[in-house]
């Protein structure tokens, strides 16, 4: 099936879903149904988009463009390549599952507003991954912020206002610096009247950017992405935001929003600023390895389940930046796979922590225990996701992490060399086993407890949410090659752009 303008449709569908939501304000059931149908149609549409994508080509596909602010050279310009084409269905799937799960009873107040927030959020998230114009990207990047601010601030836990403000201020601080960078690029892109912000045009003229310019603008972009990702030491908003966010918010935050950071590096920072990349790369690699070890170390001593998963995200995203900045195919492909893996697995972990919390109203690890006696189904699913998270071969976590390590060992462009940082980063894999299994045994194992007997195992809706994630986790672990075949050509092009300042791609 071929659908024209599929990328634009992906932005339109959630917006269309907002109309019935506005019409049936106050009707919680209708709002749930509208949101489920809308996000499901969006999911199907994204799969059609994936089916239309030609595997093996490096360039942008399904491109659509139109003048937006012609006097400023700003265009509506969307397209996907091998790096982004998988992130879009990942986003639509997680959004659909979040909405589905929330409809099952997790959200009781202001359902219409909640669902509307999710649809707006979805526009922003999909938009971030398909925008090829820097201004459009910026708008989408900020569009993700508002609904997430509301989701945490309204439907969050007891300290939700503190957490959501912290989240917004951190992210906003980063993205505003990025805006400065975008303006700088716009000014540098040519004389008045011929300025542009479209990525292919900028790639063709990037040799005009001086080393000094690249140094500063890379910093401006990098700061935004580093905060979003988050990289050490900009990560402290993450545990607070996750702890207070409602389950669906945590899933999307960890599953999709963090990926915008990693994606931003690959899509804009590396190709546009090869010299800037070289200048900042040693610091980023060192910070990535610190994130892997530090995030894991701090995870081990967490008392709160959600904080543990949140800090583990810092460690796992450290593998993403590490893989991106070792600038080789294995590292880069590993980083993209790790993004997908982290979305499914950490999304699932937050889902399961949420399911558990909804029943027991406990999140402190020491207060829990023995759940495996009562919930065999829950235990199985949760166990598989824990194993995927600690990088067990055969599940999705292993492939990405291993490829990143393989890339790191080979990388010589950093002080002390890859043979120092690679084995160091690999220690993170030991630590992951420690904090995850220790958590699992304290929460799930132990004698049966009477007050848990009345609590039911997974409901059909919860199973329906978990199964797709489980299937993807297994598929990505056992058959990663189809995904690699999609990613690799585009990733190679990005690496060529990042490592060879004279390599110019004039697209259109």
């Amino acid at each position, binding site marked *: 099936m071929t659908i024209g303008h599929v990328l634009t449709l992906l932005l339109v569908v959630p917006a269309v879903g907002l109309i019935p939501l506005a019409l049936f304000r106050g009707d919680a059931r209708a709002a749930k149904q509208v949101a489920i149908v809308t996000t499901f149609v969006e999911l199907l549409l994204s799969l059609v988009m994936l089916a239309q994508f030609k595997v093996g080509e490096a360039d942008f596909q399904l491109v659509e463009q139109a003048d937006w602010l012609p006097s400023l050279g700003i265009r509506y310009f969307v397209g996907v390549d091998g790096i982004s084409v998988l992130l879009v269905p990942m986003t639509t799937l997680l959004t659909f599952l979040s909405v589905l799960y929330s409809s099952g009873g997790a959200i009781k107040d202001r359902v219409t507003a909640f669902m509307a927030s999710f649809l707006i959020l979805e526009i922003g998230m999909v938009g971030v991954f398909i925008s090829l114009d820097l201004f459009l990207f910026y708008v989408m990047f900020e569009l993700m912020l*508002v609904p997430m*601010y*509301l989701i945490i*601030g*309204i439907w969050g836990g007891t300290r939700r*206002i*503190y957490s959501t*403000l*912290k989240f*917004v*201020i*951190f992210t*906003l601080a980063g993205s*505003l610096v990025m*805006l*400065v960078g975008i*303006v700088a690029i716009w*000014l*540098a892109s040519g004389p008045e009247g011929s300025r542009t912000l479209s990525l292919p045009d900028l790639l063709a003229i990037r040799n005009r950017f001086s080393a000094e310019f690249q140094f500063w603008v890379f910093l401006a972009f990098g700061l935004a992405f580093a905060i979003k990702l988050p990289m050490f030491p900009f990560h*402290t908003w993450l545990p607070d935001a996750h702890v207070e966010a409602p389950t669906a918010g945590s899933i999307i935050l960890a599953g999709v929003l963090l990926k915008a950071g990693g994606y931003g590096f690959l899509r804009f920072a590396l190709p546009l600023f090869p010299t800037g990349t070289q200048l900042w790369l040693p610091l980023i690699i060192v910070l990535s390895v610190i994130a892997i070890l*530090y995030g894991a*170390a*701090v995870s*081990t*001593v*967490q008392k709160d389940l959600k904080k543990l998963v949140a800090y583990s995200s810092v460690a796992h995203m450290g593998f993403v930046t590490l893989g991106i900045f070792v600038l*080789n195919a*294995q590292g880069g492909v*590993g980083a993209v796979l790790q993004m997908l893996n982290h979305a499914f697995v950490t999304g699932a972990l937050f889902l399961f922590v949420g399911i558990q919390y909804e029943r027991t109203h406990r999140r402190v690890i020491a207060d829990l225990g*023995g759940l495996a006696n009562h919930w*065999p189904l829950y235990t199985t699913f949760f166990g598989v996701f824990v*194993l995927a998270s600690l990088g067990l*071969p*055969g599940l999705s976590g292993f492939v990405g992490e*291993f*490829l990143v*390590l*393989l890339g790191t*060992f*080979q990388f010589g462009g950093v002080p002390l060399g890859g043979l120092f940082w*690679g*084995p160091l980063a*690999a*220690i993170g*894999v*030991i630590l992951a*086993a*420690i904090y995850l*299994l*220790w958590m699992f*045994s304290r929460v799930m*194992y*132990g*004698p049966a407890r009477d007050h848990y007997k009345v609590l039911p195992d997974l409901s059909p809706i919860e199973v329906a949410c978990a199964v797709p994630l489980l299937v993807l986790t297994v598929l990505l672990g*056992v*058959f*990663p*090659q189809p995904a*690699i075949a999609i990613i*690799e050509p585009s990733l190679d092009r990005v690496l060529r752009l990042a490592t060879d300042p004279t390599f110019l791609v004039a697209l259109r």
Partner: protein
Amino acid sequence: MIESVASAQVVAGFIQLVWVIPGLPLAAFLINGLFGRRWLGHLTGWIATGAVGLSALLAIGVFVDVLRGVERSTVVLYRWIGVGEFKIDVAAFIDPLSSVMLLVVTVVGTLIFVFANGYMAHDQGFPRFFTWFSLFVFAMLILVMADNYLLMFVGWEGVGLCSYLLIGYWFQNTAPQKAANKAFWMNRIGDWGYTIGMITIFLVFGSLQFTEVFEKVGIATQANLTLICLALFVGATGKSAQLPLYSWLPDAMEGPTPVSALIHAATMVTAGVYLVARSTPLFVAAGPALQVVAVIGALTAIFAATIALVQFDIKRVMAYSTVSQLGYMFLALGVGAPVAAIFHLATHAFFKALLFLGSGSVIHATGNEQDMRKMGGLRRKMPVTYWTMLIAGGALAALPPLAGFWSKDEIVGAAFVSGQTVLWAVGIITAVLTAFYVTRAMWLTFHGEPRDHHLYDHAHESPTVMTLPLILLAVGSATLGILIGFPPDQGFIHSFLRPAVEVEGVEHTAEIGTILALAAVSVAAGLLGIAVGFLMYARHRPDPAAVTRAAGPLYTLLVNKYFVDELYDNRILGLGRAFFGVLWAFDVHVIDGIANGIGRLASIGGGGARRLQTGVVGNYALTVVVGLFVVLVAYGGYAAGIFKR
């Protein structure tokens, strides 16, 4: 796709089906896992057993194919990972070495599965047990069949997972949980070494495929090879419970006894031996690494044997014995006798599995009693268990003509012939200790007067489903050595395995006179240990209690297992937790403190937050959008100003 190197015109019939061998246990895992708890119940046991049994038949077929001259075949299933130059297939590599391993895993596995049907019959988690047990066999088969280091690593971690799950099988209790975590964590430390070794192999050779790497072994520098081999050996010490990563294995006895027999004696713990044997071309070229293997092996052998002397838990004795016997296998690898290592691996699989199952039979009969001090005289109640265990005990003590004699003698002899007389002496002393502790265990359990009459009165021989595997394993323990290992150094196993694992020019051959003299010393060592054990426990000359008092601090040291558990589980873990706690405090107070401090400076704090809490969604949205716009314009203008300059 099959590539066979056939010396004769042989149709590799069963080798084409080699992927069915792990496929059957995988299918049993899926069926039992999906339908076991609700619908299948105790049927799961026979589904799993049937699957492993069929795998065993196919493995015999593959073995026969190899025997008939198909020296090496690769059966590719599909491309698993391919990024740039890094290409990994899911492919099976069948050669004499892997065909022997397939046989050991499936044949011993089938017998233990049959036994487990009886042993676990009254356990509530029966379907869960057989689900994980099937998964284990699948992972173990992947480990031994893999044609490259990465796929082997999948099996390697897979068996580690199953070991974790099955050690912690009785998850309601604290001890199994702790033992399971400890096992996984220590293995992960080893796996760190494996990972480093594996990636370095790829960097040096550009491949992870066994045949390709071994062909190119000449292009590597000595330093590279030493690094690779030592890193791989770190992995082997974790999986095969060698110094210093051995202490998880005795704790692993918290799992059900069939698990101890299959995973923690016969198969999984030998994976490290298999890894080093498989990598023989690398180790031989690496030189010093091989010496490290030999020394660690010998040290572990004697170290664990001394601890086994004073244990009272019957399974712990066997566990330390396993650590010790694995040490022998590494000693063999280290002195350049990989065939002897695999030979001992095979015989050990039979007699140690039998010793564990026999212990299980005793534990089953006495209502879950594992303390030998409460047993005694059980041979009258459990004749089959007694006689079969006696054969296995004799094999462990290396009495001729039982299986263990031939393989262990060959190891100790190889140490001597290769000129490592110190290691040879360690092997002989360990043989004395081994014979002593096995005699002690047999006597305390089966001989003398019953020390706990309640326990004795209720004891009974196990049902046929359990005794039959004991008998079959006893046949193996008695005859396997002479069947495949006679005459020494020239038996079937030697001619069969040599092309697969030995590298030209490292063989040490000895005069027949030397061989006989060495064998005589070995046998004498075994007899000495048995005699001392018999005198102490049957005749009380000297009385064990008196010896204990006389030994004083030495006994305290042994009974506390050299305080290694104390060091690992309390000191090191405690230090780690304290350090990580400090890091977290740093995160909260310093890093987040700075961030919040900046926030406070910007005076975006509590006041603003309170006003925001008006409860109207529109207001929130409006506030953010307006604020965003204002800051955006301000920044944009500011930035434009900078760059206009």
